[in-house]
C-alpha cells in the first residue's frame, strides 16, 4: 500500500519555485529519504505534506487523506521532527512528552506507560525529571524524535534529524530509526544532506533546485555509475593494459602513472587480477561509488559545494545558538 502519494506538487514563494512539480509515492513501512543540498526544497516539501504550508499546485494524499482538504486527519496520522528545535526548555523531558501525548489524545495510564517506553528507547529514562534546558544538543534531538512517535503515528517525518550532532549520536539516532521501523512498523520520511546517511534508506529521492532528479534504492543509484573504480599500478603499465584487454576484456585508462577502470564487483575481481596478470603489481586500490558520486554525476556538482558546506556550518551554529 502507498501511504504517501504525491502528484506534481509545487510551492512558489514570490515567483521562486522552491518545489517544482514533484511526484513520488512512499510505501507503508519503508524508510524514504529526501537527499539534496541546502535550499533544494526538502523542508518545504515536508511542510506541505504535514499541512503546515499550502501547496501552490498539485496534490498529496497521506494515509488516504488529502493534505489540503483533510488537514486534521493528516495531522493525526503523522509525527514530525522539525529541522529547528521545538522543545520547551523550561519543562522537563517527561512534561514535554506529556504535553505531546495529551494534545494528541493519548489518554491516562496508557500515556504514562508510553512515555516510559519512549524514554527507554531513546535512552533518556534517567533524565525524565530534568529540565530540558540542562540537556545537550544530542539529548534534545533524541527527545524530539521520541516525542515525534509517541502518539503512534503512521508516518514519522524527520527533517535533518542528525545535523550538527557528533558521529556517535548520529549512529545512535540511526539505530532508533531502524528500531522504529521494525518495532512500530512506522513509515519514515526523512531529509538529509549527508550522503553516507542516505545509504540507510530503503529508497532515496535526490532533489535539486526543487526537482526530483533521481529516485531509486541506494544500490540501484550506485549501479548507474557503472561499478567500483579500480586503480592499478604495475611495473609495466603498458603491458598490463594490454593484458587487461586480452585476458579480462577490460579497457583501462592511463592516469597519473597508473591504470584506472570500472568493474561491477570489485572485491571478487581483485584476486582474479593477481592470477591473470603477468606484470608485477605494485598497488591496487578499490573505490566503492558513493551517493556523492551519484549526485555529482546527475547534477554535475558536489552536494557539499563550497556554498553548501558553508551553510551547513551556519546551520550547526544556528542550532547550537538556539539551543543555547
Amino acid at each position, binding site marked *: 500500500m502507498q501511504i504517501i502519494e504525491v502528484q506534481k506538487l509545487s510551492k512558489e514563494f514570490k515567483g521562486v519555485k522552491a518545489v517544482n512539480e514533484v511526484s513520488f509515492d512512499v510505501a507503508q513501512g519503508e524508510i524514504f529519504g529526501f537527499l539534496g543540498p541546502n535550499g533544494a526544497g526538502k523542508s518545504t516539501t515536508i*511542510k506541505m505534506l*504535514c499541512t*503546515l504550508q499550502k501547496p501552490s499546485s498539485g496534490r498529496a494524499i497521506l494515509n488516504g487523506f488529502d493534505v489540503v482538504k483533510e488537514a486534521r486527519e493528516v*495531522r493525526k496520522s503523522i509525527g514530525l521532527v522539525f529541522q529547528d528545535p521545538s522543545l*520547551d526548555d523550561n519543562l522537563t523531558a517527561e*512534561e514535554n512528552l506529556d504535553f505531546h501525548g495529551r494534545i*494528541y*489524545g493519548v489518554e491516562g495510564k496508557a500515556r504514562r506507560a508510553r512515555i516510559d517506553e519512549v524514554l527507554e528507547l531513546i535512552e533518556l529514562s534517567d533524565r525524565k525529571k530534568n529540565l530540558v534546558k540542562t540537556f545537550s544538543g544530542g539529548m534534545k534531538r533524541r527527545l524530539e524524535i521520541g516525542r515525534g512517535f509517541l502518539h503512534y503515528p503512521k508516518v514519522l517525518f524527520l527533517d535533518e534529524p542528525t545535523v550538527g550532532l557528533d558521529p556517535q549520536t548520529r549512529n545512535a539516532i540511526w539505530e532508533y530509526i531502524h528500531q522504529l521501523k521494525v518495532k512500530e512498523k512506522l513509515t519514515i520520511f526523512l531529509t538529509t544532506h549527508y550522503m553516507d546517511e542516505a545509504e540507510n534508506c530503503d529508497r532515496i529521492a535526490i532533489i535539486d533546485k526543487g526537482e526530483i532528479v533521481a529516485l531509486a534504492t541506494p544500490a540501484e543509484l550506485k549501479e548507474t555509475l557503472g561499478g567500483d573504480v579500480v586503480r592499478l599500478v604495475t611495473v609495466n603499465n603498458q603491458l598490463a593494459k594490454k593484458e587487461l584487454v586480452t585476458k579480462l576484456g577490460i579497457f583501462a585508462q592511463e592516469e597519473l602513472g597508473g591504470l584506472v577502470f570500472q568493474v561491477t564487483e570489485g572485491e571478487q575481481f581483485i584476486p582474479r587480477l593477481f592470477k591473470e596478470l603477468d606484470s608485477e603489481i605494485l598497488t591496487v586500490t578499490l573505490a566503492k561509488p558513493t551517493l556523492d558520486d551519484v549526485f555529482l554525476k546527475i547534477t554535475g556538482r558536489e552536494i557539499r559545494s563550497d556554498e553548501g558546506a558553508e551553510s551547513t556550518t551556519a546551520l550547526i551554529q544556528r542550532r547550537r545558538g538556539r539551543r543555547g
Partner: protein
Amino acid sequence: MREDLGAIYVIWLREVLKFWRDKSRIITSLIQPAVWLFIMGKGLGSSFRGPGNVGYVEFMFPGVIGMTVLFTSVFSAVSIIWDREFGFLKEILVAPISRSSVVIGKALAGSTTAMLQGSLVLVFAPLVGVQLSIPVILKSLAVMFLLSLALTSCGIAGAARMESFHGFQLIMNFFVMPMYFLSGAVFPVSGLPAWMKLVAVGNPMAYGVDALKQIILGIQEFSLVRDITVILSVTVVAMGIAVLVFKGEG
C-alpha cells in the same frame, strides 16, 4: 468537542505550570505595585485627594490591581512570541487541534495567572487602609479574571503574527502605558479633556478598573453591568480576531 476541551486544558496547564514554577517572577512582580502604592501613592497623596471622601492611596489601590492584571496579561500574551522564537509554537500548530482551542487555552491561562498575581496585591489592602470582606475579595477575583481574559485576548490577537520583540516594545509604549493611564487607575477619567475621554471610553481597562473601584471602594463612573458587558464583548471580538490571525498561517 471533547478533543478541543482536552487541548484547551493542556495549553492552559503548560502555562500555569510554568508560572507556578517561576516563584521569583511571582515575587518580583509584587515590587511594581508596591512602588506605585507606597511611593507614588503616598507621595502624591500628600498633595492630592481622591474624589469624594477617599484618600489618594485608597483611590489608587483598585487601579494598581488593574495594573498588575494588565501587565501579567500582556506578559502571558507575549509568551506566543517566545513560543515562536524558541520553536515550540510549531509543535502546537502541527497538532490535530483547532486554532480556537489554542487561543482559548492561552487566554484562560493568561487570566488564571493574572488573577493569581492580582490577588497577591490584595495583601497590601490593610497597609493602605482598605477593608476587604470575603464577598468583596471573591467579586474582585472574578473581575480580575474577566478583565484579564479580555486583555490577554487582545494581546494574543496582537502578538499572533509577531516575529520579534521589536514590535512588542512598540505595543508596550503605544498601547499598554496609555491604556493604563487612561483607565482611571491613577486619576479619574471624568476630569479629562473630551478627546482623552473618548479614548478612555474605548479602553477595556477603564471598565475593569471601574468595576474594581465599585466593588472595593464603592465609587463608580459606569454601572457594573455595563463594565462587565463591555469586558465580555471585547473578549469575544479579540478572541475571534486572534483565531482568524492564527488560521491565516498554514
